[in-house]
């Protein structure tokens, strides 16, 4: 589904990603773990197309197409979804209007007609239930005044509505209490199909108790330094990031 080859990226001239290689196939869940500052969020932002990041080397192929050539909205229309670590509050833009525009733009891109209002509302109702999102929130402005947990659930709700192929969850567990974590994970697991793939970016192992990964990668200093199965996450949890830091600190770039 997505192939990342030797990806280098910088912010303000400072290199953050220093040669990432990763292949994710349909039906797979990949976890990317790493200490603070290792480049986890940079990776998700670069894949989603945020302007502040400059790709200096490497390539990314998404469903056979060059992802890095696409505008951010086109990436989304092609089926890439980033669940933000810090969802943005947009006062004055209603959640419903926002979702309707997003969904219909995607449908137009796919050559489909716009969704009927009735069908759209039915879909909203169904997907809200999935993440136990209060119906009232849908009518409010995007994320405005939402609690941390509500914001994260809103991300998964949007994911459910837009039905993407590749979902990148950027520290979706941060700031969540255990109940919200369960709801979010439950939503993700229900949405999982053999045609979809997930990249779960997290600092802690606890999310991976709920969303069980097929592969775990450890990101450090802008590169994947170790890959394994879900046991790697447990090992990391037991040993802490210090071991990793010690082991790879002096690896030449």
């Amino acid at each position, binding site marked *: 589904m997505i192939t990342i080859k030797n990806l280098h990226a910088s912010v303000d001239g400072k290199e953050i990603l220093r040669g990432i290689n990763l292949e994710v196939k349909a039906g797979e869940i990949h976890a990317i773990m790493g200490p603070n500052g290792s480049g986890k969020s940079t990776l998700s932002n670069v894949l*989603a*197309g*945020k*302007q502040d990041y400059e790709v200096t080397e490497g390539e990314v192929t998404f469903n056979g197409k060059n992802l890095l050539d696409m*505008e*951010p*909205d086109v*990436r*989304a*229309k092609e089926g890439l*979804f*980033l669940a*933000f670590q810090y*969802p*943005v509050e*947009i*006062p*004055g*833009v209603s959640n419903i*209007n*926002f*979702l309707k*525009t*997003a969904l219909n*733009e*995607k449908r137009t*891109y796919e050559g489909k007609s716009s969704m009927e209002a009735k069908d759209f509302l039915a879909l909203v109702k169904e997907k809200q239930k999935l993440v136990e999102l209060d119906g009232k929130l849908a009518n409010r*402005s*995007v994320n405005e005044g939402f609690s941390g947990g509500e914001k994260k659930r809103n991300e998964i709700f*949007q994911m459910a509505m*837009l039905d993407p192929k590749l979902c990148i969850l950027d520290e979706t567990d941060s700031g969540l209490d255990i109940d919200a974590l369960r709801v979010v994970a439950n939503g993700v697991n229900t949405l999982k199909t053999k045609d979809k793939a997930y990249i779960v970016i997290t600092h802690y192992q606890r999310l991976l108790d709920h969303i069980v990964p097929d592969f775990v990668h450890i990101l450090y200093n802008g590169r994947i330094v170790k890959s394994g199965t879900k046991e790697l996450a447990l090992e990391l949890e037991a040993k802490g990031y210090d071991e990793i830091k010690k082991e790879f600190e002096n690896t030449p770039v």
Partner: protein
Amino acid sequence: MIAEKTNTAQQIIDAVSASAGKVNFINDAALSDAMLFLENKGIPTNKHEDYKYCNVDAILKKEFKNLSQNFKEVTSIKEFKLENAVTIVVVNGNYSETLSDKIILKGLHINSFNNLDDNGKSILTSQADVNKDAFIALNTAFSGLGFHLKVENNTQLQIPIHIIYISSSNDQAITNPRNIIEIGNNSEATIIEHQITVQGKVFTNFLSEKLIKENAKLTSYTIQDQGENGFSVNTNQVKLSRAASYENTTIMLSGQLIRNNHNVVISGENAEAHLNGLFVIGNTQLVDNHTLMDHQVPNCQSNELYKGIINDKSIGVFNGKIFVRKDAQKTNAYQSSKNILLSDDATINTKPELEIYANDVKCSHGTSTGKIDESAMFYLNARGISNENAKIMLLNAFAEEVIDKITNEELKELIQKKLGFN
């Protein structure tokens, strides 16, 4: 600062006098004061503090070299009519009885200036002081045949009044529409003033004297849509009596030059005034909003909310003066100016002017100017929304705070359609 006088005023006087009808409804004293003011002070240049960013003298000199006062008649106003409103039409400054609706609302009277009763005569020129401003003087000297709209005491008008001002000329012209709006004690009305230029290049110098009597309420809308050949100065001179309420929302849709002088005199206790404004401008447009809230008595409140979206090389101005006199204790006045600049060449000048002589008051102001929120843009993009649509959504969200002040649904829909945000 002493403003330098140029000969623009004289040229205007010469051009307009040649074709103007006799202004016999305005008293001789006001007329001669107006002429004297124009002759002595002229049209303000940017050396005049109040016109620092709005050099009307230079604009008129540049744009109206061939003032011919060759007006074009207007025969139909169908396309501008609102469905649910009483329509009053003013063509090139003159109230048109033929194009206006026949008034059948109980408690509503409309008299043309040549048909004023004593009460009407006593109000005319009583609010707008010809010695205060060149455009009041210009309007007074060459006033069109306006009208006195009066809502009797204890009258609740259920239907809004839609005043359409149409300017239309075969080449270049100046018009001076004028009215008196009087809302009687315990009465309530909604008035929409709609300014349009349909043909030619026209400088329209509006003047409205509004009296809102005791416990009366006026909800007023000003829609400015004069197109790229429209130039206008709009003076609203409003006086509020005890427990009166005035809310004006001005939507500046188009016009090469829009200068608004909105002066509200709060002269009765427990009165309240609200001014809202939205301008969406581009190219080389200049929109200058000058407001004055003159708190003369205690226990009153005023509120101002002005928002601007400024693109290309256009210039926006908001200058809000709040004047709290010595006796006006317990005044509550608030002012807010928020702006989005869409281009590096766009300019906004925003200036709060608080002059407070009472010691027990609450007055505050806030201003913000920025670009479109990049993180919000990226968030919308990341959900598959194109740049174009994302921008529309964010600008709409910004403008909505002002648009929401429009409680007349038909007008609100019209404005939303015109703004193109929906």
